[in-house]
């Protein structure tokens, strides 16, 4: 019934971060809750990275790089044997997602275990490169060659690895599945064990001292049980708690910090807790002066809850909308790519918007960037033209029940994606013949 969630922290930063932070001598240590990071073991990769990024100087705002994110940099790939089925699904997704954000240098430093990821990296990086130059393939090589000349010759070995990679097209899975999975993660009904989602980090990174963990109410309950068995928060020790809880993957550091939080919460009542204290006492003052003469604390509190409830409701609505927007975006992208594939395979006369498919890599995703973009825009425009019409009735249910009239544009676009995108795509295909 217990689940523990490890979440992939966006990777690729490890190497980059250390290189930048080496150059940033004046780093203000912010709330480093995770303690010291491990810069020294990563010196090797730092060196390689630093030489490749000569332009990354002190121009950066130190605020970007906080102590805590450096600490996260010491996150390591967790043992694959820990992965359960859901976790391994997240793992694969995690890898894919990681690859989107990997910078090119990181890609070179990736070791073979990361093979699936660089595929997409190749795509995304070439798409950027191609915006400059139409022949993306040779350009990629050129750039890679430049890099070899600039940095350590050791890199050529690693580059050979990447040249071997087959840049196949891989459509990103809808993250909607994953966001559904995550809540299940929390309320996992399985036997107490830890669930991890991990990255295959380059093995040159430091061992994990404190991987970021996400607590759940169920886990906290187990914690409480253990604490009570051991005689209360004052008497219980982290080691004892850890043993009693018997949760796979839980470390003593997690328990320690959680115990500390617990003790704080317990022995300092809400009002004096944390940072909200000052604010709340000033509300109190205002209330006691103004309120008791006007409407009373009760009413003020009731009102406050109402406003808070509203904010929360609006936030939920907004979040759902944002998810759907991105879902639609993915869908459009997918349709666009399918379209490209159809065109490639047909090898027929290129349409006006996709001229420059010169010697494309088999199944390649992106035509030269500008054209690619205009294509997807054109697709969108298609939809907007056909968009103002019927067929939006069904999409309004899951939005807020009131104020539907203001949401015309979204549902219309969405419905047209489902109803008519097939039409416009095939229309395009026909005109190309």
């Amino acid at each position: 019934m217990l689940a523990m969630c490890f979440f992939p922290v966006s990777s690729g930063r490890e190497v980059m971060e250390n290189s930048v932070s080496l150059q940033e001598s004046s780093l203000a240590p912010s709330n480093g809750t995770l303690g010291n990071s491990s810069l020294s073991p990563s010196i090797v990769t730092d060196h390689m990275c630093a030489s490749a990024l000569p332009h990354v100087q002190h121009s950066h705002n130190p605020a970007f790089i906080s102590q805590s994110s450096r600490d996260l940099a010491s996150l390591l790939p967790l043992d694959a044997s820990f992965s359960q089925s859901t976790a391994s699904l997240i793992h694969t997704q995690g890898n894919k997602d990681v690859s989107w954000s990997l910078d090119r240098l990181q890609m070179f430093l990736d070791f073979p275990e990361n093979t699936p990821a660089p595929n997409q990296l190749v795509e995304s990086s070439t798409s950027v490169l191609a915006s400059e130059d139409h022949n993306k393939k040779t350009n990629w090589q050129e750039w890679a060659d430049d890099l070899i000349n600039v940095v350590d010759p050791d890199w050529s070995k690693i580059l050979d690895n990447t040249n071997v990679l087959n840049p196949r097209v891989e459509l990103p899975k809808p993250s909607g599945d994953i966001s559904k999975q995550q809540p299940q993660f929390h309320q996992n009904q399985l036997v107490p064990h830890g669930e991890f989602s991990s990255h295959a980090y380059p093995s040159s990174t430091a061992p994990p001292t404190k991987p970021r963990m996400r607590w759940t109410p169920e886990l906290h309950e187990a914690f409480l049980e253990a604490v009570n068995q051991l005689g209360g928060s004052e008497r219980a020790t982290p080691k004892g708690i850890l043993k009693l809880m018997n949760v796979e993957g839980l470390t003593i550091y997690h328990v320690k910090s959680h115990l500390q939080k617990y003790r704080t919460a317990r022995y300092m009542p809400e009002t004096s807790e944390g940072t909200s204290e000052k604010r709340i006492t000033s509300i109190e003052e205002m209330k006691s002066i103004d309120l008791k003469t006007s409407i009373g604390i009760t009413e003020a509190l009731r009102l406050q809850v109402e406003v808070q409830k509203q904010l929360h409701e609006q936030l939920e609505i907004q979040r759902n909308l944002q998810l759907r927007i991105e879902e639609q975006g993915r869908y459009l992208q997918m349709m666009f790519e399918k379209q490209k594939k159809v065109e490639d395979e047909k090898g027929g006369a290129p349409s006006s918007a996709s001229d420059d498919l010169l010697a494309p890599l088999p199944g390649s995703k992106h035509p030269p960037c500008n054209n690619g973009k205009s294509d997807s825009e054109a697709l969108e425009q298609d939809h907007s033209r056909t968009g103002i019409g019927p067929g939006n009735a069904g999409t309004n249910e899951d939005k807020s029940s009131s104020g539907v009239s203001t949401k015309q544009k979204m549902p219309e676009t969405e419905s047209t994606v489902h109803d008519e995108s097939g039409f416009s795509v095939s229309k395009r295909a026909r005109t190309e013949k």
Partner: protein
Amino acid sequence: MKFGKRLKQQIEESLPAWRDKFLSYKELKKLVRQISSAESCVEYGKANAEAEFVHLLNNEIDKFNVFFMEQEEDFIIRHKELQQRIKRVIETWGPNGTKPSEAEYKDEMAKIRKDIVNFHGEMVLLVNYSNINYTGLAKILKKYDKRTGGLLRLPFIQKVLQQPFFITDLVSKLVKECENIIDEVFPVEQEDEEEIVKEQREAITVAGKGIFRNTVAALLSMQEIRRGSSTYGHFSLPPMDLPDSDLIHSFQLNSPIPIV
């Protein structure tokens, strides 16, 4: 710059410990402008600029994740503690308790009520924190693509959608549970429509600092941000429907800093 301004206002109004945890929107915007204007034809430069940009974005995301999960953990603990506290008060000073005392009971319950309402507010503000940072990221990515002709937005935002800080389900659940507790333990007596309206108007004098103020600011910000803009498009959120918009606007009357 509208979003940037709104974000800044919200940050100013937010709890002190949170202030440096928000998205560095302005800086990122500057960077995007730098990248697009200093665009060299050299492949190396362009690719590197994007790498740098992505790296900074990732740092931001890490910042959000760490902060969010810390707060979430705190909330889990406090939520449980509040429940225990209520139970203890009822069992000790309640009518059927071990040492029933109406005065004590009332007193303690009043404290709990205030605490639980503020706790509720804080949790909602965390959800707001998550959302506004996400919105900012989406906007920055859109700007980046627009300015540099890149295709960074779509894939990158997919990744963001799966980040812990964006997955607010647990906190939302705690919020709802909190609401249930409030309704159960502090039931609202039915009042006249008129009475309620009168009280609400009087309550305008109440809107002070802190969580309540921040909440009001957040709501109104949201509304403003979602009003149509020049770049309104397929990926834009529709205008917001806020039933008590006027009332909430009126809460600002006493604020020294006008939230316009």
